[in-house]
């Protein structure tokens, strides 16, 4: 992967000045590369990783839902997946190999919101054969960032 992408993936808010220092490229080259990545859909979005457990009342509920679906003639899984991922409640949607087909991440403000999404929107779809829901209890690591505990490095304040 290009160095610029690696740096941005770790810190999307890095300044151009720092990017110049880190890559040895000038601002123009970097801007052009980033614009290009955005145009090609390689860079999709810039977002913050938030540890919601630390926000008061910010504790929504996250569910991972395994969905078995019936593929449709000609369009296979894609049309069914589209029908499902267009629901705004669906944060992630992946097609997987194995015992089920789609893995969804669904977020709601509480367990009832998620349950009613499943029973009223997802399950009634004719191509959905079945769904297994797992509610998330704790996030240890997300997008490469460890949320559970910080590593500590207590150095002596002064050494040769």
């Amino acid at each position: 992967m290009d160095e610029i992408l690696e740096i941005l993936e770790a810190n999307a808010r890095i300044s151009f000045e720092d990017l110049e220092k880190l890559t040895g490229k000038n601002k123009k080259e970097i801007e052009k590369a980033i614009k290009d990545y955005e145009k090609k859909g390689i860079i999709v979005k810039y977002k913050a990783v938030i540890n919601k457990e630390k926000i008061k009342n910010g504790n929504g509920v996250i569910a991972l839902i395994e969905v078995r679906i019936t593929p449709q003639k000609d369009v296979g899984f894609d049309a069914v997946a589209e029908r499902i991922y267009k629901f705004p409640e669906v944060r992630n949607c992946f097609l997987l190999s194995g015992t089920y087909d789609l893995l969804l991440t669904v977020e709601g403000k509480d367990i009832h919101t998620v349950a009613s999404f499943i029973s009223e929107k997802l399950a009634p779809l004719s191509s959905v054969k079945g769904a297994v829901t797992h509610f998330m209890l704790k996030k240890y690591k997300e997008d490469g960032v460890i949320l559970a505990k910080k590593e500590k490095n207590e150095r002596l304040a002064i050494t040769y």
Partner: protein
Amino acid sequence: MIAKHIKNLAPSGIRQFFDLVLGMPDVISLGVGEPDFITPWRAREKAITALEEGMTSYTSNKGLFVLRRAITDFLEKRHNLKYDAENETLITVGVSEGLDLAIRAIIERGDKVIIVSPHFVAYPALVEIAGGEVLYLKTRQEDGFKIDISELKILMKKNPKAIILNNPSNPTGTAYNAEELRKIWKVISTKDTIVISDEVYDELIYEGKTISFPALDNEAKKRTILLNGFSKAYAMTGFRIGFACANPDIIEAMTKIHSFAMMCAPIVSQVAATEALRAQKEVVEMRMEYKRRRDFIVKELNRIGLVTPKPQGAFYCFPSVKNFKISSLDFAKRLLFEEKVALVPGSAFGKEYDSYARISYANNLDNLKEAIIRIERFLKKL
């Protein structure tokens, strides 16, 4: 009760200052001589696995062969430097032990040893413990703290048994390029002097390219004791792993002392170090981060009035406090009390350097920015 030559080691003013710093909470410390990064995970993970597998014994005196082999492979790749892993390589407990072994292996009472100052604190102390006599080769800020060849020539006339070189240097961050090292070697090679080349910051170089001293030529290789280790570039200070490479006779002598005084380096640390050599991506990332910080701190120190030449390596710079007409120890004490910023007074690195201070930028950028604000405020009061 205590031996006289031990009692008189190291200036006590500095020790008291260190105690002051260690006893004070919430200090931003620019006095730390070790990385603020944690050891790359893959090395730590190997250490954990080694313990789980029951690796808790001694190793051979020279250290695990697999580590020695990984080191000689690394040196060949990095510096085109070929050492025999069996007879020319010794694993030490940090470079500190390697340094002690090298000095004790070759220095007899009364032997002269050239030390380039400002110097790492352990150099003169270890030479004195071994009964040697130190010849200081002073360098100046206006020369970027690099060796003045004509002064080296004068000291070489005293037939020194050894010269200790530190490239890049603690405390100045000065690094020599190949051409400069060749000029130095040309002078040293006129005598039988042994070169002890402490290259522990070898992988932390930000400007140009350096070469390892023994890579200069075959004769240089025969006469050099190369010391390096994992503490700095691999952020492994607590693991205490260093290594020495030299001709078989010297390694044999160093191993003799090591086998009586230390037995061997800790096995878990040796396993971790072997793995660390594969963490080159992490090393590059840390180096890039140090470089960013160096660029920031040097620019800022000069802006606020502390003259600071741009160092090429390590993670130190050595600004002058001359313009403020204050000793480095008073400067450090007042800065600590008035603004809670710690640094090491220059006099710790040689008594002629009392108008300098060592600043370590092994600290995150936020702390460095805050430290600059505080130092600037402090300077206005002087």
